[in-house]
């Protein structure tokens, strides 16, 4: 493996008296998809902000590869209603991009032809994909997603993460993401890091899901849903299925129930079917 793109060494971050991150070490190599999971207040967003350079560490530090280009998709972008902003203009922030590049980025993020729309008029899913398009225009070596699907329903976020995997395959960029959608995200990851102020456990998704630390944090239930999604995921990508690479939203809506049904019938421990 090549040198890591980002290497975090013994990072400790304090907010006043409280310790947000305690002696966290973590690295991301080129082309890798790493997911950070953890309960609320576990320091996930602080870790992301530390990588971006927005917090001052009490100890340790973040080393980035020289010239590293980062594409960042924030958890939520609140557009003040007084700020007019077309999608096309947004894509050119902070660096101007050509009309052709903007069109291509929107196509590649799965939202073609939105350039003339106002950002405020977009749906939640479209908005997140436009954020993704902007991040891709930076031609990132590392794509950072902070709860990028927080406002989306499950089919929407599943489709979003499938898109991320394709982007990785097309561009070879590494991906570091934080998410609550454990099952969806973990199945798309090469490596999962379970964070709760410190790194509880780290490894391949299957391995992490079996560790006592992970189960203590997220309970047994998520294992079942994860297995379910693993199944869904392998199925839609593994067999050259006619619709396998159709990434319209409608596809997800129409196909999810079909895949969910047999999986449940096979007796996968689906303890939380409503999620």
């Amino acid at each position, binding site marked *: 493996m090549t040198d890591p793109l980002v290497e975090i060494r013994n990072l400790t971050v304090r907010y006043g008296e409280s310790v947000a991150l305690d002696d966290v070490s973590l690295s991301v190599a080129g082309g890798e998809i790493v997911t950070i999971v953890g309960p609320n207040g576990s320091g996930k967003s602080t870790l992301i902000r530390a990588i*971006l350079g927005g917090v001052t560490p009490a100890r340790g530090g973040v080393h980035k590869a020289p010239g590293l280009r*980062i594409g*960042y998709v924030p958890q939520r972008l609140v557009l003040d209603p007084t700020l*007019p902003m*077309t999608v096309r203009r947004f894509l050119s922030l*902070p660096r101007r991009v050509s009309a052709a590049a903007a069109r291509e980025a929107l196509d590649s993020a799965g939202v073609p032809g939105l350039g003339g729309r106002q950002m405020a008029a977009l749906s939640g899913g479209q908005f997140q994909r436009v954020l993704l398009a902007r991040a891709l225009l930076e031609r990132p070596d590392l794509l950072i997603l902070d709860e990028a699907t927080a406002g989306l329903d499950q089919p929407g976020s599943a489709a979003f993460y499938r898109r991320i995997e394709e982007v990785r395959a097309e561009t070879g960029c590494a991906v570091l993401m934080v998410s609550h959608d454990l099952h969806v995200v973990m199945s798309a990851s090469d490596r999962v890091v379970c964070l709760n102020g410190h790194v509880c456990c780290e490894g391949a998704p299957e391995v992490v899901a079996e560790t006592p630390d992970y189960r203590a944090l997220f309970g047994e239930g998520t294992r079942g849903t994860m297995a379910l999604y693993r199944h869904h995921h392998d199925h839609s990508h593994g067999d050259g299925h006619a619709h396998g690479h159709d990434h319209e939203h409608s596809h997800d809506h129409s196909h999810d129930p079909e895949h969910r049904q047999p999986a449940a019938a096979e007796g996968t421990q689906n303890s939380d079917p409503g999620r």
Partner: protein
Amino acid sequence: MILDDFMTRAALAGIGTALAAAPLGCFVVWRRMAYFGDATAHAAILGVALSLAFQLPVFAGALVVALVMATVVSLMSGRGYAMDTLLGVMAHSALAFGLVAVSFLDSVRIDVMAYLFGDILAVSRGDLAVIWGGAVLVLGLVGWRWSALLTATLNPDLARAAGLDPRREELVLTLSLAVVVAVAIKVVGVLLITAMLIVPAATVRPFARTPEAMGLGAAALAMATSYGGLRLSYAFDTPTGPTIVCVAAICFALSASLAGLMRRQRG
């Protein structure tokens, strides 16, 4: 020479101030800094008092105190008080201290009203040079950092990911704001500076599709209202600074009603 005419000088002073204030005012609106502008402007009266006491140029004193005020507010934010409370305290105490300080200056007989509400008809050639120098500086700064400022305004982390330093961009805004306050004292006075910043921007908002359109539109409208206000104040013998703000406010009311009508028609 053309600058011999006080009306010409007044018109140029108003247009220069409008040109600098309006695009910056867009950021004041987008970042919800109206009260911050108020605090900075009110503090400037203290600067006026100090410069008169030490016989320094009023512009320099106002600029320095406005900068100090802006910095103190930035440093104190997030220390236990809500931002609007903090700014309210700072804005009005700065004004009160400034007025008290001015009253000590019995050696110089000054007309406080001129600094509170402006005295655009008394603008000298030197004042004009300062106003246009300041306007060019602010336009240059804001124009140069425009995209970076916009990115940092949207989301500081987004700016950091793109290799920008949002704190530096904030500093650009703070500095520009202090300069605008200092040059606008003569034109509209410390009490009405915030109006020069935000009213044109807010008026243009419903008709703008991009940030640039809003900035340019606000600048054009601000120049027009400055000139219109000046002519009206001459015709009706009303105080000029407040008249300019009245014209801008009427434009805002028209724009808001029109925007409401357009929304109803579409809906």
